[in-house]
Structure formats: structure tokens, C-alpha cells
């Protein structure tokens, strides 16, 4: 653990010596403050309440290096082709070991309207108002988010002007090229969405190569009045992938957020998803589905802060845990003083497939206002015997019955993905893994007879 920390400290010195930033600028000051914090705090340990079940022992076993940022990007379309979604015509931003790859980034016609670019370049060219760099003051400190802010990291910088209705989703694809070495990559994204917009965002993570990747990705998403945002966090990487995400969302009046975190594969996944309502009439829908096996680990920590009256939040996370895998869910709803007329619901359901699979689930409600409706619930169990028998009594064998039931369990969440092609792609992935045929042709015909 100290090994990577020492490397980071060395790399900070390099940054100080070589940076183009004005040493008196707010950006620079912010980086230094956070670096000091990181040097003192380091990586989380299990004594940290929020990391009670989340062990960073892999840092002791794997020697991660920090990629040389001065090196040019080298990935080609051929390298990434197989990781892209076939039928989705998206605006693609490709990052390679923490650096934007302009050759593979493909922004479509509306480029004139919205600003899409590299955050690092934007900061270096002073295109940002300083307070846009750090808007995390609403949320509790997270050690990895601090680490993320302790460097001048690259990432997507997206400004969407008022009234933009974007049909093509924004797809941020983070590649780790570990063909030569184990790498630790950091990314920071800032996405500012104006008023009355309609935006879909997909984030995905991919490791190319046999060595290990460790990614620490922070995203600030600020949603303007009456905008509608779909936010999909897709994790379907390999057994040598360690991912941490910190997503901090602020919502203004009348805005709607629909988010889905889908974790299908990865050695270690930790998602921190935080949202706050800054004005009335906001709605947040958090959905999540995780399906982990082998010795994989997935941890979803969500925080919903209701700071204004008349808002809604709805959260459903479901998981299937196989083999020796471990899942963690911690969902917190905080209703601040003077924010009545809140409806906040939360649900976490888990299915264990083996006796050695583990779930740690903790719903939390903290309510400081009267006149709110809040509920939470968590269940963990095995597949219902009665359901399996019913299917068997109709000629379906046990394995197929289980697969059908698990597929159905996942469907509730997957159906909430509003990009049809993406939804079908994920459905196919899950069906394939469960070994059930999902007959899309059949489904289409059925739709037609509705």
C-alpha cells in the first residue's frame, strides 16, 4: 500500500516541477491542499466506517505504477473495437491510461453547440471558473476522492448549453492498457448540464492486457433546472481490473436523474454515488444491478441528500452473488432540516447462489424533518423453492428454471435502461452468462400483439 503511496508522492513532485499551472491559481491551490490531505490520510482502511467491508489488500500484492503522462496515446481503433457497443451511435470519448485519446474520440455534428474536451487542457488553458473544479462540499470526504483531486487529472469536460436535446448518448470509455505493466490511472470528469436539456451518459471501463489496472474515477455531474439526465455506469471488465468511482451529482429545480449502475465483472469494484437536490421538485432514481462470481468484490455506497422540500428519490439495487464473491450495499438517505414533503424509497435485494457467497447490506435513513415519507428494505436469500418447483412441474429442468428466475430477477433493473440498444446488449450479456436464450425476435413479435 505504501509502495503506491510513495510513487504518488514522487509523481506529485514531478507535477510541481513541470506543471504549466500558475502557482497562485485556485486550481493549483486546490490540488496542493488535497495532496497534503492524501499524504496524511493515505488509502482507506477497514477502520474507516465507510470502508468496513472493503479491503485494499490488493495494493499489497500488486505493484501498480503511474503511467508516464508525457507519452503519446497509442491505442488504435482495432484495440478498442471489440469493447464498443455495436448498435449504439454515440458520441465517444476515449481515455487511455488516464489521458484523452483524441484520435479515437468521435464527437458528432453538434460539436458547435456543446463543449466537449479534455479537462486537463481546459484547466491549463484557464477555461474553467475555479469553483467548477471542486464542488464536493455537499458530500462527506472520501479518501479516494481526495486522492483524485490531489493531482491534475485528465477526463471529460462537457458543457451542455440550455435547451439541448441530445439523441446520441455521450459515451465515456476508460481504457487501461496493461500489456506492459500494472497501472494506476486517475480520471476526473466534469459534466455541466444547462436548463431544459435531455442527455444520456454512458460510462464504461475496459482493461486491455493481462496485467492489472487500478482506476480511480471521479465524476461531477451538475444538472440544471428542468433537465432530464440518464446516467449509466457499466462495469463489465476482467479479473485484473480494480475500479473505484466517485460520482457527485447536484440537481437543480425540477430536474430528473435516472441512474443505473450495472456491475457484471471485475476483481474489485467500489462505487460511491452521491446526489443532492439543491432546489424543489427534483427527482432521483438510483438503480443498480450486480452479478458477481469467483472471488470478485463489488461495493455500492449511495448517498441521497434531500435538502429541499417536495422532492422524490427512488432507489432499487439488486444483486446475484455466486461462488466466493462478496457484495456490499450501503444506501443512505439523509433528509435535512426544513425539507418536508419528501418521498424517499430504497430497496436492496440479494440472491446468494452458494453458501460461500457473502452480502453485507446496510440501509440507512437519517431524517431531520417532519412530514416526509421514507422507507427502506433489504433482503438476502436464496431462490424460492416453490418457484423452481412450479417451473419443473412444467417440464423445465432445475438449471434452466434457476436461470430463468435469475434472469427475471435482473430484468426488473435492466428494463429501466432507456437506451434500447444498450438495454438489449446488457440483457444479452446476462442471458448468455446464465445460459438462457433471450429470444429478441420473439419479444418483438410479442410487443406487436400487445
Amino acid at each position, binding site marked *: 500500500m505504501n509502495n503506491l503511496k510513495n510513487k504518488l508522492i514522487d509523481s506529485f513532485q514531478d507535477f510541481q516541477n513541470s506543471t504549466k499551472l500558475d502557482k497562485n491559481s485556485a486550481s493549483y491551490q486546490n490540488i496542493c491542499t488535497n495532496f497534503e490531505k492524501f499524504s496524511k490520510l493515505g488509502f482507506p482502511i477497514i477502520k474507516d466506517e465507510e470502508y468496513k467491508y472493503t479491503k485494499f489488500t490488493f495494493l499489497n500484492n500488486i505493484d501498480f505504477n503511474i503511467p508516464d503522462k508525457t507519452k503519446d496515446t497509442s491505442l488504435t481503433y482495432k484495440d478498442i473495437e471489440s469493447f464498443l457497443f455495436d448498435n449504439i451511435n454515440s458520441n465517444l470519448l476515449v481515455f487511455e491510461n488516464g489521458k484523452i485519446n483524441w484520435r479515437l474520440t468521435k464527437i458528432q455534428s453538434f460539436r458547435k453547440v456543446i463543449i466537449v474536451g479534455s479537462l486537463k487542457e481546459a484547466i491549463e488553458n484557464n477555461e474553467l471558473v475555479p469553483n467548477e473544479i471542486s464542488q464536493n462540499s455537499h458530500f462527506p470526504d472520501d479518501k479516494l476522492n481526495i486522492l483524485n483531486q490531489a493531482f491534475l487529472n485528465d477526463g471529460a469536460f462537457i458543457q451542455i448549453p440550455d435547451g439541448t436535446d441530445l439523441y446520441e448518448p455521450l459515451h465515456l470509455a476508460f481504457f487501461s492498457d496493461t500489456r506492459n505493466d500494472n497501472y494506476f490511472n486517475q480520471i476526473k470528469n466534469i459534466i455541466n448540464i444547462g436548463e431544459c436539456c435531455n442527455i444520456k451518459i454512458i460510462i464504461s471501463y475496459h482493461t486491455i492486457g493481462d496485467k492489472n489496472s487500478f482506476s480511480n474515477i471521479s465524476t461531477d455531474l451538475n444538472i440544471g433546472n428542468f433537465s432530464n439526465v440518464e446516467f449509466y455506469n457499466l462495469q463489465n471488465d476482467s479479473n485484473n481490473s480494480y475500479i473505484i468511482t466517485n460520482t457527485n451529482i447536484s440537481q437543480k429545480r425540477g430536474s430528473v436523474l435516472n441512474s443505473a449502475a450495472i456491475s457484471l465483472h471485475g476483481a474489485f469494484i467500489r462505487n460511491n454515488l452521491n446526489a443532492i437536490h439543491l432546489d424543489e421538485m427534483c427527482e432521483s432514481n438510483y438503480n443498480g444491478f450486480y452479478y458477481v462470481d469467483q472471488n470478485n468484490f463489488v461495493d455500492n455506497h449511495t448517498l441521497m441528500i434531500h435538502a429541499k422540500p417536495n422532492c422524490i428519490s427512488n432507489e432499487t439495487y439488486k444483486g446475484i452473488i455466486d461462488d466466493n464473491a462478496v457484495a456490499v450495499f450501503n444506501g443512505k438517505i439523509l433528509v435535512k432540516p426544513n425539507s418536508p414533503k419528501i418521498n424517499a424509497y430504497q430497496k436492496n435485494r440479494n440472491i446468494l447462489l452458494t453458501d460461500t457467497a457473502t452480502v453485507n447490506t446496510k440501509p440507512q435513513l437519517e431524517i431531520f424533518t417532519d412530514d416526509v415519507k421514507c422507507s427502506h428494505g433489504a433482503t438476502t436469500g436464496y431462490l*424460492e423453492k*416453490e*418457484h423452481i*418447483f*412450479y*417451473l*419443473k*412441474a*412444467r*417440464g*423445465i*429442468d*432445475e438449471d*434452466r428454471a434457476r436461470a*430463468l*428466475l435469475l*434472469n*427475471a*430477477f435482473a*430484468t*426488473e433493473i435492466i428494463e429501466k435502461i432507456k437506451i434500447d440498444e444498450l438495454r438489449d446488449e446488457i440483457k444479452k450479456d446476462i442471458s448468455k452468462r446464465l445460459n438462457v436464450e433471450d*429470444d429478441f*425476435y*420473439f419479444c418483438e*413479435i*410479442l*410487443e406487436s*400483439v*400487445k
Partner: protein
Amino acid sequence: MSLLKIENLKVNIHGKEILKGFNFEVNPGEVHAIMGPNGTGKSTLANVLAGKDEYEIIDGSVTYLGKNLLEMPAEVRAREGLFLAFQYPVEIPGVSNANFMKTSLNEVRKHRNLPPLDAMDFLQLMKERAALVDIDKSFLNRSVNEGFSGGEKKRNEVFQMAMLEPRLAVLDETDSGLDIDALKVVSNGVNRLRNTNNAFVIITHYQRLLNYIIPDFVHVMYNGKIVKSGGKELAYELEEKGYDWIKKENWN
């Protein structure tokens, strides 16, 4: 050859003896009604036939189409043409009726060495059979039994039966919870499926259902055994006199 032959069947659940030497035979083309007071083992019989595994078979044999039924896993029994219409059909959220029936029917067809039905043919069949039990086609897209009323669940059981065309169907209190119209619909469905090749075992508490589905035989089950058998007139007698006289006759 008889379709089903049960000889001296003794079954326990959680160490308690429920079926106590049960004998029963069904031939193709026959409709049998099994009646009897609560707690005499009627549903146990149905569940044992369908292959539910929490029961302990102590003694006896069950021969279905010349094969030892008790050795077959539940899914194989279904593929061999044995069908149980459940007393309490479970709700399965997320699995659509259409997908469920398609998987089920194609498993059964595979077992009979028939090719799977393609989507269009399947849908055609489904619509046709749904009409038989007066089910609206919108239900095909709904999850299995989820949010169905009691009557809809029972109709769905008969619909599934119509889809799978079993050789032997066991209807476990399919009439309970049905209103008069639904009762007619369900009975009508059963009557349309009756032929000389298949057979029905109807478990019921009430003679009412037997006004619509005319049984060839009526059996009274008491204390884990069949204690009386007769024609359909036995059902009227039971309706009139209740079960007390049966209980007295078998007092020991």
C-alpha cells in the same frame, strides 16, 4: 394398459403419515373425481404425483404408462405428459407467461422428439388456447400469475394444460375460489380437452364442479385412503349428507 396405477402408497411428511396405503387406477379416456374432507391427503397425493421432493415415500408403487413414476424427476414427469394444476399457483415476477410457456412447451416437444415451435406458430397456438379459457391476449406479456386474481390464476393453470396437452391431468381444487362464470369457463376448457387418449383426476370439495365436468368415477378419500368409490351419483349423496357418515363408517 392403465395410464396410472397406484398400489399401497404410503407417504410421510415431516415424519407424519399422510397417505396410508392408497390404491388407485386410471385408464385412458376416464375422468375421476376425488372428494373428501380437509386434511385427508388429497393435495399430498397431487404433490407426490407431480414430484415435489419434501415427501417421504415409505412404501408402495406408482406406475405411469408402464414406468416407475417415483423414480422420475419432476420435470421428466411433466415431459411425459403428467400435469398438475396447482391449488395455489405461485407468482413469478419477471418471467412472462409467453416466455414461460414457450420454454415449457419446447422442453416437452424436445422430449417427444418434435422440433421446437417457431415464434409465429407458438403465438398462434397460444392465442387459440387462451381463447379456450377466455383469457385476454394482453396477459401473455404479463409475468406468470403476478397480480392475477384467484380466478385468473386458476384459468392460467387450465390454459397451461391446454398448451401442453397432457396425457394425465391432476386438477387440485381448481374450482375453489372461482365464481360461477369462471367455473363454467374452466370446466368448458377441460371438457374440450377430453378425449379417449387422456385422463383427468379432479380433486374437489364440492359437487358443483361435477355438474359441468361429468366424472366417470367418484372416490371419497378419508384418512389417507380411498374409502368409497362409485359413479357420479356418489357426489350428490355427499353433497346432501356431508362427510360425517363416511367418517362414522370408517371409525376405527
